[in-house]
């Protein structure tokens, strides 16, 4: 480990020349809250945290760090679930928390200009007076910021119909690693040449620092209603999802929960979920009054024909909110019945759902860890919650291995390792399962095009090729040992 003390002192002094002294944090006690993001099992104290208040200050920080080759980790609200904002021991955490102003809302053109630290929900709250809202709604929308949403290409429960962050952006102002400001995109919908806006979105702070965002706003639907249906088994539930799509209906939201998630949620939220169901579907239809009425009737009929054991349709806004509350509270609900839980984020083709759920159940027995499943069924995005107790030595490692195996299963059935949380540090080992060395080399070449010294969020997103070799050796060793376990039939210890 290199001694960072002299550099730390030097940088603190330099930064304090143009940033308010309080907003340059260098003592361990005040640094502590920055040691992790929403994935609290991964921690690292940074060398320094800075909270600049103007774009010029951010540019200066970047310039200095670039000259001294100091790693820079951008941070919004720190709600990410893949350790993408975990600090670097020898680096600076660049907090954009002070940039929390909505710069303008254009109700005619239906767009909003935002500083990166504006909270996701605050956009819709501010746009409401114009009858508009911002589409993507990650579960963390009360706290998470638009800058972080751009960095992770965040989704939410309405993705199938309204898309991810990438579908809802007009432009992004980016500071390059040298601190130069560039505008990508415009007020118009398409730009000339390669689609840089798409490349930036979801790049996890590895290519530049988002300093301003212009998003599209959508008209608030006239009405929205939810149909909730319980099913006796997962297979039927999966078929009902396909049935809706086959009918030509694209629901605003289509969420599934398994029996363990249902009972945990019901215990907590008291939304009236059917406790006898093996699986539950929440199907929200939105649009004009006429359209919603027509589709609700079709959806109800369909659920019946696929063998739903119970059907309930929201009759008021309060009831709709209550039915959703159960789903949105699923994570804290699971948090109540287990000391800790670990949330995964794989995607699969919907047709593989029943198979994947069965396989995860087998893994759960093998690892001796319980699992609860919530699932963006409409777009094939799984969120298995692995329950564990961090105070039991070795249990987190076990949960981590279990999670890794789930992601590998997702890739094996034609899916991928992350649908909306990003890779960060958490899934960096699984990148070699989804991508070949040649593909990873192309990613590195892109990174070099933006940041040749590799100081922007180093160690995240894309594993170095040297690490890939190590991971691949470990991977094949693991596969061999798993093979032998399966052959011998022993599955209690891994």
């Amino acid at each position, binding site marked *: 480990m290199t001694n960072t003390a002299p550099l730390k002192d030097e940088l603190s002094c330099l930064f304090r020349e143009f940033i308010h002294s309080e907003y340059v944090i260098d003592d361990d006690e005040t640094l502590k809250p920055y040691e992790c993001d929403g994935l609290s099992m991964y921690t690292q104290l940074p060398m320094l945290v800075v909270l600049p208040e103007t774009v010029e200050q951010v540019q200066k920080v970047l310039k200095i760090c670039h000259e001294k080759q100091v790693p820079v980790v951008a941070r919004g609200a720190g709600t990410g679930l893949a350790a993408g904002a975990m600090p670097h021991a020898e680096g600076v955490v660049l907090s954009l928390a002070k940039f929390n102003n909505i710069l303008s809302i254009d*109700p*005619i*053109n*239906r767009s909003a200009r935002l500083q990166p630290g504006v909270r996701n929900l605050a956009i819709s709250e501010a746009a409401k007076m114009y*009858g508009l809202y911002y589409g993507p709604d990650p579960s963390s929308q009360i706290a998470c910021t638009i800058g972080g949403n751009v960095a992770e*290409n965040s989704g939410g429960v309405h*993705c199938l119909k309204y*898309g*991810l962050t*990438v579908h809802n952006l007009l432009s992004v102002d980016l500071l390059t690693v040298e601190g130069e400001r*560039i505008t*990508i995109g*415009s*007020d*118009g*919908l*398409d*730009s*000339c*040449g*390669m*689609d*840089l806006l*798409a*490349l930036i979105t*979801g790049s996890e702070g590895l290519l530049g620092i988002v300093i301003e965002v212009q998003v599209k706003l959508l*008209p608030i*639907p006239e009405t929205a209603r939810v149909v909730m249906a319980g099913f006796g088994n997962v297979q039927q539930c999966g078929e009902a999802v*396909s049935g809706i*799509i086959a009918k*030509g209906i*694209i629901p605003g939201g289509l969420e599934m929960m398994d029996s363990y998630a249902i009972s945990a949620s019901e215990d907590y939220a008291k939304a009236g979920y059917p406790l006898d169901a093996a699986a539950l579907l929440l199907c929200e239809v939105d649009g*004009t009054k*006429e*359209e919603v*009425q027509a589709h609700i009737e079709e959806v109800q009929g369909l659920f019946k024909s696929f063998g739903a054991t119970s059907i309930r349709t929201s009759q008021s806004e309060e009831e709709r909110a209550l039915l959703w509350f159960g789903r949105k509270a699923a994570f804290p609900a699971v948090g109540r019945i287990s000391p800790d839980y670990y949330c995964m984020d794989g*995607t*699969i*083709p919907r*047709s593989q759902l029943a198979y994947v759920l069965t396989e995860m159940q087998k893994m759960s027995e093998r690892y001796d860890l319980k699992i609860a499943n919530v699932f963006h069924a*409409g*777009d*094939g*995005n799984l969120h298995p919650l692995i329950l564990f107790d961090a105070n039991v030595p070795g249990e987190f490692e076990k949960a981590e291995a279990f999670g890794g195996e789930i992601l590998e299963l997702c890739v094996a059935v*034609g*899916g*991928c390792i992350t*649908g*909306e949380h990003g890779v960060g540090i958490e*899934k960096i080992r699984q990148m070699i399962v*989804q*991508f*070949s060395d040649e*593909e990873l080399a*192309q990613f590195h070449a*892109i990174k*070099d095009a*933006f940041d040749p010294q590799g100081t922007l969020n180093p160690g995240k*997103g*894309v594993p170095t090729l040297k690490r890939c070799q190590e991971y691949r050796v470990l991977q094949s060793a693991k596969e061999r040992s798993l093979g032998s376990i399966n052959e011998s039939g022993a599955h209690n210890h891994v």
Partner: protein
Amino acid sequence: MSDISLELQAQVTNAIKNNQPLTIKGGGSKSFMGRETDKSLQILDVSGHSGIVNYEPVELILTARAGTPLIEIENALAENNQMLAFEPPHFSNSATLGGTLACNQSGPGRPWYGSIRDHVLGIRLINGTGKHLRFGGQVMKNVAGYDVSRLQAGAMGTLGVITEVSLKILPKPKAQVTLTWELSAADALQKMNRLAGTSKPLTAACWVNGRLYVRLSGAQSAVDATATQWKGNELEQIGDFWMQLREHSLSYFDPSLPLWRFSINSAAKLNHIDDHSIIDWGGSQRWFSGHAEKKEMQQLAIKAGGQVSLFSGGDREDVMHEPQSALKALQKNIKKSFDPAGIFNPGRVYKWM
């Protein structure tokens, strides 16, 4: 209907070895777009790399080789009452899926349904080191690694040879109605933006020649109720107008004149242009047919919050909106990261790339 990716890869490898730049060609339907490049360059013909690889109507996903004609894909989708919601222009029966992505071509519904890049889920690509790579996936959501798939939209083949594309598919709307009003350009602009701010099944809005056309699509009851409420004249043969607009076969489009394409703020006014233009995409896209200085057009576009390009005709030496210098440097670096030897479509988008 065959997989010729190994042959394509071999040709690319050869071109790298001999330092011999290539012109990538699919159906040739969009060769009029972009800059004119050196005609003596060797052609890499992707049209033989064709065929639908995977189509699962219930998954709403289709994967096809890049040389697959759009017509073939649209026919297959129509059998299941589904569609390419970005309504790609064809400009010729030979138009392919790969070319449509490379040129980022989307039709009248773009502001509501999204563009081709919004529907792309994954691609396969031969890069400038001759490697055949896979990015994105065949699932609705995938945020692992950089979004190389969507990056290709508009790159016009300068980053590599797209060999396969996976797309999100949508169901066809059950009902469709087009309403029209006689309006000035300025009034039409206002009305389009106002209508787009309401939660109604609006899927296209275009003003041409003193008339505003608005398309409603969705459930029959919703389309009917909105049509009654909005009180426009219902247009017969609704398919024809939007198809002619998409294919540039309306009489406005005069092939003997340069055609400018503005991508700007939907509410912006383009003085001296609007009255003589087609205002499409609810105001976000304007077509202007006529001789003009590119510099002046570019200033107008910047003032209107967007960009301009010379879509067809005119002087093909310099056709794209000129990016700011830092963005230019960045694009050069990205080009190099995919194509270090500079063999793919040199000069097709910009002279300097």
